[in-house]
């Protein structure tokens, strides 16, 4: 199995996932159901996470099809640009979906302003994703092409952003620094929460530390944005790198693991002086292992693969 297979496996998830997640979200607003709202936000967040390897594996698929007869560079670039625009909005949707879940845990409701933001972002993301999927289908399916040459407004978006990242002298070192700022924020807060669950600082309630989680989410957001910029800048140094595959896979797992601390009641009910249940401890310990593994894979990019 290579990146082409992975791209073919994943590329339907964002579009279909948005139909399910977005549909559930609209239904939850109509039915005024908090459970449906939370379920739809989990789907939207999950799809945002899956969109990352979907986009990245596309560059591997590009290498496999670019020299095939009937495949043009402009069609690939049109798909790549549309996909970059779509993933940008999907990541924002995922961020606000997570915020909604966090707000629900603290306030027992999601503020109306955030519901409105999620609704707008979901509709825009779905539109952009559907367009990216259609342009992707046109690459290998001549029967659905509108014309000979596909020219789209966002056609050169990915390459323009990529060139800006690699050719602007301050851009790469700025992203590197911000990647570490994000990492410090993320691991600083996540480890604090995990250590409390594991039994350190027992006098502090879980709810007090849970209040810090948006700082971790902001750090994660900073890492995703800067990480995506690195990838768009020089995709070739990542798509053949085994350490990078592991890193992205582990980020997905760690992201899913983090949901436990906001979605489930077990850790939330942990008061001052109380010992966490075994399940919560397993999630906390595995989160720490996963994030250390993510950092290890990031550091090993030049040693296990061909990066830098």
């Amino acid at each position, binding site marked *: 199995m290579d990146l082409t297979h992975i791209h073919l496996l994943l590329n339907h998830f964002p579009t279909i996932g948005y139909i399910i997640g977005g549909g559930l979200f609209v239904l939850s607003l109509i039915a005024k159901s908090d459970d449906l709202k939370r379920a739809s936000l989990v789907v939207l967040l999950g799809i945002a996470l899956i969109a990352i390897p979907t986009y990245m594996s596309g560059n591997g698929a590009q290498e496999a099809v670019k020299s095939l007869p009937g495949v043009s560079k402009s069609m690939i670039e049109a798909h790549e640009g549309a996909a970059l625009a779509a993933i940008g909005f999907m990541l924002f949707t995922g961020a606000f979906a997570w915020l909604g879940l966090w707000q629900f845990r603290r*306030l027992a409701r999601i503020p109306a302003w955030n519901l409105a933001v999620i609704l707008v972002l979901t509709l825009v993301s779905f539109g952009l994703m559907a367009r990216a999927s259609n342009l992707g289908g046109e690459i290998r399916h001549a029967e659905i092409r509108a014309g000979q040459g596909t020219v789209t407004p966002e056609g050169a978006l990915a390459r323009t952003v990529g060139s800006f990242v690699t050719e602007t002298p*301050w851009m790469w070192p700025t992203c590197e620094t911000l990647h570490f700022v994000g990492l410090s924020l993320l691991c600083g807060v996540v480890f604090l929460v995990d250590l409390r669950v594991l039994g350190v600082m027992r006098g502090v309630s879980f709810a007090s530390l849970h209040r810090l989680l948006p700082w971790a989410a902001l750090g994660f957001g900073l890492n995703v944005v800067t990480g995506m910029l690195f990838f768009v800048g020089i995709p070739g140094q990542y798509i053949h790198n085994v350490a990078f595959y592991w890193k992205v896979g582990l980020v997905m797992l760690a992201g899913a693991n983090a949901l436990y601390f906001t979605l489930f009641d077990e850790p939330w009910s942990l008061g001052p002086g109380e010992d966490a249940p075994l399940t919560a401890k397993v999630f906390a310990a595995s989160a720490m292992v996963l994030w250390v593994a993510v950092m290890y894979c990031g550091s090993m990019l030049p040693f296990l693969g061909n990066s830098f």
Partner: protein
Amino acid sequence: MRLVVGTILWVIVVTVLVGIVGYALDRSTARQERKE
């Protein structure tokens, strides 16, 4: 010069923005928690 100034400037701008968003979010949630 452009490299050093650009890097320092943008790191400060983005870090401050992240700080403002985090602080505003924390304050507004704390305020609503006190209300309820």
